[in-house]
């Protein structure tokens, strides 16, 4: 029968191309501790859910002996599938095929699946493992990158875009991940840089390893280019699955609701925070005490740990938490923490995720390096992001809220829908010591015992001003609450905010201090 023969021929054809670079190249890939591209997709997606397209796409390069070179799938696998039932588009670069190098057809396979994701309004996941531009294709490779970046930008804020760095990703290639919403890296496997160690050594004479220049840890802890860091590909895929379960398919939807569970966290919330404002604690404990099932997916865990951001659920629905972290740098805002918070807030706003802000911060990080790095411009991003956001926004002031930090952390003045404060909250223009030193300068200097007078004046200031009641008397705080009421009140606030309808002046786009 002809049809049977045809099917047999198809199967043979597929089997050849699906081998990618062949057994030897796959062996090499595995020896590097990496999964082959196809196995990565299968490990990430629901069983039997992956469907591949453009398997038979071939490159059209005729120069440099490329005319008689067959590149299976042109070095990239593209298709659709599901993660925990949620539909997604996916592509994975295949390092076994000419080093996963990007030529025009390779890029066009990627842009095709991206266009599909944007049209179908479903997330797009890219697995990067490529030596870079296919030099033989010259400008064709550059055109390919540009077409990908353009689509990353068009899709930004419409569908979630996820980049997984499972190999080298160097030169122009890094800019696609940089334009996407979340970047995942794996220890010893991910390498990202604009100019590699060789160029740096030739041009500058500086010797540095790939790992120290742009390894997983560097991007997770120092540069902030990576949002999630894992020790193995398997752990990385688990992180992606969790993330996908917490975010919506597109900006027209909400993240899927699940059956709510009470927090499992045992310690009482009122006992987490030391009453001495100088003593630290881990603000993630407060999140654990508030979030459903005490589950929290932290974004940017290692970078700028002085602020904590991530996703949890309240009453089964996804919320974004933004919390100052007194455990690191006393919880100050600095350049990195501002960038981290602002980006996260904008993601939540774009994808209809309410934002809960937990505030306990002494102000901005002092230092020449911070001022010269542009903490003004970076800090302004937080103000911009909070003010711009139209999703439900609620703040709980746990302890300190001083000065510019008070304004920045989703204050009433930036459009917070609900402002709660614990009774010990200190809402003031600055810390009591500093304020007393300025206001009562004369009395302190003229006193016989300066220290005693200073202490007395600090005490007076704390009693009169460093509390939540001054702000509450002006309506800037909606309710001073008991710590154990916090979760119930937040659940209620979320419940009554469901139909929130807030508008911004019509404009092409704002001009945030990028």
């Amino acid at each position, binding site marked *: 029968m002809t049809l049977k023969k045809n099917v047999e021929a198809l199967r043979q054809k597929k089997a050849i191309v699906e081998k990618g670079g062949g057994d030897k190249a796959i062996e090499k890939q595995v020896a590097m501790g990496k999964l082959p591209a196809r196995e990565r997709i299968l490990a990430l997606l629901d069983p039997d859910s992956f469907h591949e397209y453009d398997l038979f796409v071939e490159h059209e390069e005729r120069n440099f002996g490329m005319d008689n070179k067959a590149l299976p799938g042109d070095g990239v696998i593209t298709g659709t599938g599901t993660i925990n039932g949620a539909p997604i588009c996916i592509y994975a670069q295949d390092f076994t095929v000419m080093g996963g190098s990007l030529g025009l057809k390779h890029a066009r396979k990627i842009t095709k699946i991206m266009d599909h994701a944007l049209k179908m309004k479903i997330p797009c996941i890219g697995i990067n493992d490529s030596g870079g531009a296919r030099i033989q294709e010259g400008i064709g490779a550059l055109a390919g990158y540009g077409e990908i970046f353009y689509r990353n930008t068009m899709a930004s804020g419409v569908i979630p875009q996820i980049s997984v760095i499972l190999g080298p990703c160097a030169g122009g290639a890094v800019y696609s991940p940089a334009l996407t919403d979340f970047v995942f890296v794996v220890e010893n496997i991910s390498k990202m840089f604009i100019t590699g160690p060789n160029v740096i050594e030739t041009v500058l004479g500086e010797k540095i390893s790939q790992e120290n220049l742009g390894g997983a840890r560097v991007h997770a802890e120092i540069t902030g280019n990576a949002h999630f860091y894992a020790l193995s590909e398997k752990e990385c895929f688990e992180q992606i699955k969790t993330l996908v379960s917490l975010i919506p398919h597109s900006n027209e939807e909400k993240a899927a609701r699940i059956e709510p569970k009470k927090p499992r966290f*045992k310690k009482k919330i009122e006992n987490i925070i030391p009453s001495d404002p100088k003593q630290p604690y881990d603000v993630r404990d407060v999140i654990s005490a508030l979030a459903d099932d005490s589950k929290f997916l932290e974004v940017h865990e290692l970078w700028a740990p002085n602020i904590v951001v991530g996703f949890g659920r309240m009453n089964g629905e996804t919320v974004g938490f933004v919390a100052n972290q007194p455990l*690191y740098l*006393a919880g100050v805002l600095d350049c990195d923490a501002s960038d981290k918070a602002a980006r996260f807030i904008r993601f939540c706003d774009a994808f209809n995720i309410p934002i809960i802000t937990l505030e306990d911060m*002494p102000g901005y990080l002092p230092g020449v390096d911070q001022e010269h790095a542009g903490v003004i411009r970076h800090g302004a991003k937080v103000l911009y992001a909070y003010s711009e956001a139209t999703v439900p926004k609620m703040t709980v002031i746990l302890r300190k809220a001083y000065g510019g930090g008070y304004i920045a952390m989703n204050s009433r003045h930036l459009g917070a829908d609900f402002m709660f404060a614990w009774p010990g909250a200190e809402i003031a223009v600055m810390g009591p010591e500093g304020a007393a030193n300025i206001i009562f300068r004369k009395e302190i200097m003229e006193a016989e015992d300066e220290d005693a007078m200073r202490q007395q004046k600090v005490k007076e200031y704390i009693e009169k001003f460093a509390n939540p009641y001054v702000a509450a008397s002006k309506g800037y705080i909606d309710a001073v609450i008991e710590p154990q009421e916090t979760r119930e009140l937040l659940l209620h606030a979320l419940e009554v905010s469901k139909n929130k309808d807030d508008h911004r002046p019509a404009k092409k786009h704002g001009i945030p201090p990028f």
Partner: protein
Amino acid sequence: MSENKIKNGEQDAKSEELIDFAVTARKYKTLLTTKYKERKPWVNPNPYDIQSSIPGTIIKILVKEKQIVKEGEPILILEAMKMQNRIEMPFTARIKKINVSEGEKIPKEFLMIELAPADEK
């Protein structure tokens, strides 16, 4: 961090790791980040130090030690990123010490030449 990790309030920072960290008038007990520890402390620039503003190679040295050079005169050619940069005298002064030689590759902020006031011996 895995989504399921619950610490139940166990303090993960050992109290001896906590340091006093001053933000305005008050000192807070807290931990430092790697990046904060590795930051470069600010040093006031010395106008008599001629430092490289970019890493590169010294192509030519146009002055000698002890020589008095007028403001604006070229003193060095530093090649960086395939461009030959002419380094000029910021003000009239004496060349006190030359710390580089022709052909030498230098990093950024390398003290290439030390100056002294023109009237100083």
